[in-house]
Structures are given as structure tokens and as C-alpha cells.
């Protein structure tokens, strides 16, 4: 039977199509993306990459594309989120729109504040990126010059200013040229108690011999829905240290895709997901080793409580040519309440015969003997829990080379614990 039955669109799908028409910001690529969404719909659990995040069921209806906020509002809202690091040079976005606040870039870095081209996309497995292609309002391309060794942290900061039921979509391209060194912090924040849809795609290209330290601090508002993707390509001898913090958001889907296309690549990924309240946080990672002699490590520490639901999907593909790949993945989770849950799924596809791939996942509650020991010294149950949670995630955060940034991130973790533990 090949009879084609027209699919009935859900409210969320229909309203995305309506929002696209209403925005009137069209071109061939956008049209193609919206046509794909219309034809295939949003992914359900039957699409393997969305097995634990049924986007068709979870995505809310009624969004429209956010207009440009006033400069005054852009500044006022920004000021509500103290910076994670001092001394950084930051590029600002509000509700998907670029704002030039005149922060001088360090030598060796240039920015072109135009929407970079979107990458070609597949079926509804790519829904996250399709939505970004269709709706992206603004973006920029950050280039790090060949051989540049930049010490100053470069920031890409996005804030949602609180206009309810709006889509804010931005796209960034980062090109780290050969033999350059740079430190980049990407941060997404939003106001509490406002429903909005945040869409973000980052294409990070790390050329031969370049080193990038990239941190993503994703701190969306408690009612926010976020669809984010990071695509990374690594050339010969490239090195990436990536850290991801997820704290907040009602629905957060963050995809991280890595193509290791050069040899002798060193890829280190770590992250902390704090999942409380009604949050649904999904980090889906895909590492593809195309070439021989490369290393990747991936470590996530997750804390789930309240009615939080967490997801980690870690795919490692080792292509036939990728001999001597060494890939290691670990996912450790604290489950702190009866109503929270966490799903961890490793997927290894190995076509080369001389490789090492390891994966492991653990799930625990706080250790009773630790709790007793701390409380036997007068530390209250709440504070004892916080100390142990902090210890669990601090092992990852403390590994960050930038101690100032680590402190900033720990501050965010403390704030989260004050609310949820």
C-alpha cells in the first residue's frame, strides 16, 4: 500500500506555518525549510533522534516572530543578568535581533553582523535546524584570524526580553582559522514566567591546528521552549574543549553534532544539566569520527528533581577509515525526587576494527552515609543535600581552565539549588 494520506497538522505545526506567513520574511531556503516542516510535520517519538522528546506533542502553539525591542529594553533586560565572566567582549542579541553596544573586539577577531547561510538539511530529524532556517531573524559570523592567539573571552549573549508567545531565532557562524586559539562563551537567558520559543543554531568550524574553548550556558526562563543546535567541524590537529550548562527552560532540546574530519583531533565535551520543576531537558549528541587517530571524551553530570525529565542521547559513529579512534562517553545522574526521571541512551556505530569506544551511565540518589556524616556535624538536611549536589557537579566545573568562568557557572548552580533543592 503506498496510498498517500494527507497528514493532519497539529495546532503547533499550523501556528508555525501561520507565523511564517505573518512574518513575511521569505527566501528560497526559508521556503524550503517551511515546506519540509509542512510535509513531514514535527518529529514524534518514532523518529529515533527524538525518542524521548516528542516534539509534536510538546511544542506549544500560538507563537509569532518577535519584533525588535527598543534599545532601552534591550539594555534593561540585559542588566538583569550579571555577566558570567568579567572582561569579556560581548556581542548582543535580544529576541533574535542583533544589538551593537559597541564592545571592542580583541585583535584577531572580526564580526560580520549578518545572518550566515543555513546548512542544507534533511527530514524531520532536523526539525530543530529547519525551524531556525525558516525563522532566523539575525545572526553573525565571528572569525578568528589565522594564527591569532586571543586571550580575551568573546561572548555571544542572547536574552529574551519578555514579549509573550514570541519566537526569537538567531544563527551564528564561528570560523576559527588555522592555528588560532580562542575562548568563546555563548549564553542564552530569558525572563521567568514568560512563554517564548528560542531557536539557536551555531556552526563552529575549527580549522587545522586551531584550539577553541567553547562554553554554552543555557539559562532559559522557566516557561521557555528552546530548540538549539551546535554543529562543529574539526580539522587536522584541531582541539575543542566544550562545556555546556543547562539550567532552566520548560522544554530544552540542545543538539550537539561533531564531525571530526581531520586527524589527531582532540575533542573534549563535558556538561552539567540541572533539571528541576517542570523542566524537560534533552541533550542529544552525535560525534562522527571520519578520520584515523582522533580522541573524543564526553562527560555529562545530571541532577534531576521535582517533576523534571532529562534526556541524554550520545551517538558515536566511527567510520571505516577512522582507525585508532579513542572515544569515551559517560553520563552520571542524580535522581532526587520520586517524580523526576532521566533517560540515557548510548548509540555506538563502529565500522573500523581497531578502535576503543567506551560508554557508561550511572543513576543514583545522594549517598545516605554522606548525608548522615554531614548532618551529624550540625549541617541541615537541605544544606547537606546542596553540598553533595555541588560536589557531584563541581568535579566537572572545576576542570574548566578559566577559574573566573567556573566561579560564574557555580554561582548559577547555587542559584538553581536555592530554588529547587
Amino acid at each position, binding site marked *: 500500500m503506498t496510498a498517500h494520506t494527507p497528514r493532519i497538522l497539529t495546532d503547533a505545526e499550523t501556528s508555525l506555518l501561520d507565523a511564517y506567513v505573518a512574518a513575511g520574511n521569505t527566501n528560497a531556503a526559508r521556503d524550503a525549510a517551511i515546506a519540509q516542516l509542512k510535509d513531514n510535520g514535527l518529529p514524534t517519538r518514532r523518529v529515533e533522534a527524538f525518542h524521548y522528546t516528542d516534539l509534536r506533542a510538546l511544542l506549544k502553539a500560538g507563537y509569532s516572530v518577535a519584533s525588535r525591542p527598543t534599545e532601552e529594553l534591550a539594555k534593561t533586560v540585559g542588566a538583569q543578568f550579571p555577566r558570567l565572566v568579567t572582561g569579556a567582549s560581548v556581542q548582543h542579541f535580544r529576541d533574535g535581533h542583533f544589538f551593537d553596544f559597541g564592545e571592542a573586539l580583541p585583535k584577531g577577531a572580526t564580526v560580520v553582523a549578518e545572518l550566515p547561510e543555513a546548512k542544507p538539511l534533511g527530514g524531520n530529524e532536523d526539525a530543530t535546524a529547519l525551524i531556525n532556517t525558516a525563522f532566523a531573524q539575525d545572526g553573525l559570523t565571528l572569525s578568528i584570524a589565522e594564527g591569532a592567539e586571543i586571550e580575551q573571552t568573546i561572548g555571544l549573549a542572547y536574552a529574551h526580553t519578555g514579549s509573550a508567545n514570541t519566537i526569537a531565532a538567531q544563527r551564528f557562524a564561528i570560523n576559527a582559522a588555522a592555528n588560532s586559539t580562542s575562548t568563546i562563551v555563548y549564553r542564552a537567558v530569558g525572563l521567568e514566567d514568560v512563554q517564548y520559543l528560542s531557536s539557536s543554531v551555531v556552526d563552529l568550524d575549527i580549522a587545522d591546528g586551531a584550539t577553541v574553548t567553547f562554553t554554552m550556558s543555557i539559562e532559559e526562563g522557566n516557561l521557555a521552549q528552546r530548540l538549539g543546535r551546535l554543529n562543529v567541524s574539526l580539522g587536522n590537529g584541531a582541539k575543542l574543549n566544550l562545556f555546556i550548562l543547562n539550567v532552566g527552560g520548560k522544554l530544552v532540546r540542545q543538539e550537539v553534532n561533531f564531525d571530526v574530519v581531520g586527524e589527531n583531533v582532540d575533542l573534549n565535551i563535558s556538561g552539567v544539566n540541572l533539571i528541576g520543576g517542570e523542566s524537560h531537558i534533552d541533550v542529544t549528541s552525535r560525534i562522527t569520527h571520519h578520520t584515523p587517530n582522533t580522541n573524543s571524551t564526553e562527560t555529562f553530570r545530571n541532577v534531576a528533581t521535582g517533576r523534571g525529565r532529562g534526556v541524554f542521547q550520545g551517538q558515536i559513529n566511527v567510520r571505516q577509515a577512522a582507525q585508532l579512534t579513542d572515544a569515551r562517553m559517560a553520563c552520571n545522574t542524580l535522581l532526587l525526587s520520586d517524580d523526576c526521571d532521566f533517560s540515557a541512551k548510548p548509540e555506538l556505530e563502529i565500522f573500523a576494527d581497531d578502535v576503543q569506544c567506551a560508554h557508561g551511565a550511572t543513576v543514583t540518589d545522594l549517598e*545516605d552515609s554522606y548525608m548522615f556524616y554531614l548532618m551529624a556535624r550540625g549541617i541541615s538536611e537541605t544544606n547537606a543535600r546542596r553540598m553533595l549536589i555541588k560536589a557531584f557537579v563541581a568535579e566537572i566545573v572545576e576542570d574548566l581552565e578559566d577559574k573566573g568562568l567556573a566561579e560564574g557557572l557555580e554561582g548559577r548552580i547555587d542559584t538553581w539549588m536555592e530554588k529547587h533543592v
Partner: protein
Amino acid sequence: MLEIKNLHVRIEEDGTEIIKGLNLSVAAGEVAAIMGPNGSGKSTLSYVLSGKEDYEVTEGSITYNGQDLLELDVAERAAAGVFLAFQYPVEIPGVPTMTFLKEAMNAQRKERGEAELTTPDFIKRVRAAAGDLKIDFNMLKRPVNVGFSGGEKKRAEILQMSLLEPKLCILDETDSGLDIDALKIVSDGVNHLRDPNRAVIVITHYQRLLDHIVPDSVHVLSNGQIVKSGDKSLAIELEEKGYADIIAAAA
């Protein structure tokens, strides 16, 4: 200070009764030794006093300075001045010792309505106490008890005790795993804390510790009850004759 009456305790999980009608009173300023064979209920008694959850009190009472101790949770008891020096101090990866000490000292100060310690004041106190116990200050930069030797862990327990200045100290086999020099240091640490307003319960298998920490009273615990009480000479008698005779005579 401490009045235990007809205490019955069982293990919550399987219902095994460990303490079977124990009576004990310890006055302020007193050092009471509790001795007894393996499995007599010594460690259970220390856990019940400090409030560990795995035990259920089915009968009897524990009154501490006029207060029903069983009403309080673990942290509240500690804040009220009950301190257990663990037989097996717990290693807690990821929690720096200094952070732990500061949190503990300030939690108790807060409970007593005192101001939090400033960082310099805190460090000064820890340095002084560590010096007395011959603890290398650098050791305290490590996570709680992680990588400490057996003797270092016991000294760290006494360090905590001296910093927290409890009213009722319970030493659960603090002598186990200590060499002679460490035993002396730990005993000196405890003796230093002897005070007319402070009671100490020393739980031990051996008389040796009591040569250093001379008790005011000695109690023999057997099968969940105190079967004999006496002064320090009772400990010497036990060392000579063993538990079997004393327990048989008491039965």
C-alpha cells in the same frame, strides 16, 4: 546531662532487636567508658544517640539536658551539642574539608543565635586546633577524609570535635586503627576537652585507651544491656579476666 531509660532499639530494616532495655546516666563533667564484646550493641548505641535513621526506638527514653533527644533530627542534635566521633569516618569526594568545617561551625553557631565566623577567624581557629593535633594544614585542603590514613581520619574527628565544642562527646572506638603515638595525640586532644560542663562517652574494646583517657565510670554492655557498672578499676578487671567471667557473674 544524659539519661537513658529502658531503651529498646531494633534495626528498622529487619526488625532485629539490638538494645534491650538499656539504662545509663552520664553527668556533666563525667567521662563514662562503655565496654563490651563484639555485637553487644555499642555502635548501635552511638548511632541512636546521634540520630541515625536506620534504627527504631521501640521503647524507653533518652533525655539530654532535660530535652527529649529522640524528638530531634541528626543536625538538630549536633547543634544541641551532641557529637559522634565515628568509628569509620566517611570519605566524601568533592566536598573540601575547609568548606565542610566552616559550614558545620556556622550552622551550629546560627542555631545557637551566634554570628557567623569571619574567614580569617575561622582559619585561625582551624590552624590552632590542627597544630595541637599535629595535623598538616595542607591535608585540610583535600576533600573530607579522602586519602586520609586511618590515624589521620581519627585525628580529623577529634579536630572537628575541638572546633565544634560539643557538650556531649561520643567516641566510638576511636582507638581502633591507631598506633601508640597517634593514640597519645588523640587522647591528649580528648583530655584537653574535659570540662565540668562537658560529658564524654568513650566506647572501646580495650582498656589501653582508658590508660590515657581515665574514665570516671565504666559500664559493661552485653546483649543490649548494661550488665555491670563500676569505676576505672572495672576496666582493669575486664582486661585481666575477659568479658566472659564478668558477664556470667552479672547474669
